[in-house]
């Protein structure tokens, strides 16, 4: 079954990766004080792409000092309209260089070019465009007249949407008048370093944006630095907890966007083909490396066989392989560590008695890969129904009544997102009201927009990114 496709690789000649990168501090690329560096690899080939600086505590000090100086001397004194115009410039340059950035993102992250090109990059530019417009309208945003910025923001982002998470952090921070020190994830630093070059092209005043690369220690030094006024983190709930603990007793404002274990609920009257597309998009988009992924499929018992037939048929057409190929649906797992975690939880799923299924799927020999995987016969007690796997692994559970669906959907410490599939409008709204999740997608899934607030309930964190609500995280209100 299925069609043969000729290879259709996007050319990578558009990107120019330097053999090594420094830290972007005070408008310049500078070497780390102790000279430590680490490698970043292409997860689809295991080829080393570049060497990147590991920022130590003194480097973080320098970056925070540069951000503070830029805040005091320049950025907080600029007219709001001027801040907005810098952001508009950045948005335009992102559009101009979007093909290059999409390819770079795919090479460093492993996500399919179709997604980096059609989802990530358009949203990145749109986010800067949206918040650029807020810069000189904050008086009208509902936070009182003349709301003030916080100062220096420490921002730590994950590896699943490197440049998009950067945009979600930097655009509202700058629009509100803050300066930032941002740490990209250890495995995906390259688009953030390319963004440093965009700041140069935009002639952004030095020190307004600082990029420090490194691993967890760098992130810890940054969020615990006494010179920062704001901490924004996207990543795991475990690290989020540590951050919440470490800022206790300080005056730092904190927003956390953490893990999830979203229920995607399909009622018996749902349009089956659309629901199957939504399920696939919900869990296999970005290899399932999505905090709001629909990783728990809740299906009404009367249609489970029919739905699984359709779903398995559809998964048979999924194309896994070279992320740069324009026909690829599922790319590479971002790192060997993440691959090990997905493998471990999947074997736990089998060991605990759930039934595992994957379509026939050849995995490339080099690189980090995991086939799209379904588990049926999953109970709520199974670890694969409770823990965030962050990979292309779907757990299927069933329910009989809307009340049972709701009970199961909410039976998790997480509360980031949820999906509902039904043709009955009143049932959608009834479910949407009762699902304890920050985003509810009804008859769709994994949609994002700069105007639309995103963020979690419960242990999925607090604060919102996007929309008017997203301004609050960067204002002294």
């Amino acid at each position, binding site marked *: 079954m299925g069609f043969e496709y000729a290879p259709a690789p996007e050319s990578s000649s558009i990107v120019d990766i330097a053999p090594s990168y420094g830290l972007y501090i005070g408008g310049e690329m500078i070497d780390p004080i102790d000279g430590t560096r680490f490698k970043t690899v292409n997860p689809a080939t295991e080829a080393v792409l570049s060497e990147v600086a590991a920022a130590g505590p003194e480097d973080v000090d320098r970056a925070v000092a540069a951000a503070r100086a830029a805040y005091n001397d320049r950025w907080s004194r600029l007219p709001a309209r001027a801040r907005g115009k810098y952001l508009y410039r950045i948005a335009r340059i992102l559009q101009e260089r979007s093909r290059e950035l999409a390819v770079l993102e795919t090479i460093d992250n492993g996500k399919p070019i179709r997604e980096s090109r059609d989802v990530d990059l358009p949203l990145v530019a749109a986010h800067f465009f949206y918040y650029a417009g807020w810069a000189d309208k904050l008086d009208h945003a509902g936070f009182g007249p003349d709301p003030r910025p916080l100062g220096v923001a420490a921002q730590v982002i994950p590896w699943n949407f490197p440049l998009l998470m950067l945009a979600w952090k930097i655009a509202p921070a700058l629009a509100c008048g803050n300066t930032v020190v941002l740490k990209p994830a250890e495995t995906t630093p390259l688009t953030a370093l390319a963004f440093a070059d965009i700041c140069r092209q935009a002639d952004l005043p030095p020190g307004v944006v600082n990029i420090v690369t490194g691993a967890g220690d760098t992130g810890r030094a940054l969020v615990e630095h006494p010179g920062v006024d704001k901490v924004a983190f996207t990543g795991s709930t475990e690290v989020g907890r540590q951050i*919440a603990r470490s800022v206790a007793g300080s005056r730092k404002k904190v927003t956390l966007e*953490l893990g999830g274990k979203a229920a995607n609920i399909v009622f018996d009257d749902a349009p089956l083909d659309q629901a199957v597309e939504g399920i696939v998009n919900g869990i296999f988009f970005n290899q399932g490396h999505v905090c709001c992924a629909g990783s728990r499929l809740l299906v009404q018992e009367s249609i489970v066989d029919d739905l699984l037939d359709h779903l398995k048929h559809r998964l048979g057409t999924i194309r896994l392989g070279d992320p740069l190929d324009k026909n690829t649906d599922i790319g590479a797992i971002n790192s060997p560590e993440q691959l090990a975690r997905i493998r471990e939880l999947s074997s736990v799923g089998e060991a605990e008695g759930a039934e595992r299924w994957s379509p026939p799927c050849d995995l490339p020999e080099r690189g980090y890969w995991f086939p799209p995987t379904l588990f049926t016969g999953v109970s709520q007690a199974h670890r694969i129904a409770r823990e965030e796997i962050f990979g292309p692994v779907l757990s299927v559970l069933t329910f009989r009544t809307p009340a049972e669906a709701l009970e199961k959907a909410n039976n998790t410490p997480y509360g980031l997102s949820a999906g509902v599939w039904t043709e009955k409008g009143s049932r959608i709204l009834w479910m949407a009201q009762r699902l304890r999740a920050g985003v*509810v997608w009804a008859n*769709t899934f994994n949609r994002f927009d700069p105007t*639309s607030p995103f963020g979690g309930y*419960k*242990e999925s964190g607090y604060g919102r990114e996007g929309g008017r609500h997203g301004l609050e995280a960067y204002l002294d209100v």
Partner: protein
Amino acid sequence: MSDPDGRVPVRKTYKLYVGGAFPRSESGRTYEVTSARGQFLANAALASRKDARDAVVAARKAVPGWSGATAYNRGQVLYRVAEMLEGRRAQFVAEVADAEGLKPRPAADVVDAAIDRWVWYAGWSDKIHQVQGSSNPVAGPYFDFSVPEPTGVVAVVAPPDSSLLGLVSVVAPVVVTGNTAVVVASEERPLPAITLAEVLATSDLPGGVVNLLTGRAAEIAPWLASHMDVNAIDLAGITDQELATELEAAAAENLKRVVRPPADTPEWAPDPGLDRMLAFLETKTVWHPVGI
């Protein structure tokens, strides 16, 4: 002591307020409460860890009904609280005067402000959604809207000084939006809080929506801060910075929303703004395709 005509007044036993009932502390403990001038007023219940946990259970049980009530209904209940408080105005003026060492006129001003604060918050119940919610113009064929929703069970450490106005100013913003509360009253000045509980109990407020504990904040608050079924904590009444830090760190375990103690002793009389309501509201965003 007796009245001039020789009648011995009937005193009140001050107890806890949990799940709509007035139990003693399960620990059997009490502590002596005196007036600002040092005269004996009453023995108040000295709440224990068990009392705090019982109060959380009661608060959790009340969440579906209260958060599911219409905003109009919640507004009417809060307005009813103001009505009941007004009816007992003289009693509160006397209790606040005793507790805070105020002369009758300033004590009356405090009580009036507390009554008016209930009225102010009552009016917010069906307006906060329109101020805080939004319809979001996404770049695609979707209807996308965001609404505020209550966080759930909120623990509140009430201010130590302002025994009534401060208390009302931290409780009303929590419950008006549909949250339920476990409140630790002012340790030294708990009596107006318990009398307020009598008002709440007769105002159509469902049992468990507000639960009130008296005792030592330093003893009870750590259990609330670390309780995994509490969604948020307001540290308004914590004056010890070290304790505040410990409580905030404990609250991180299940990522409670935390309102830190104020940097300076707050003025409770001015217009409070939206901050305390917004601190205990989540934003839910719903997407649906548009098509035929």
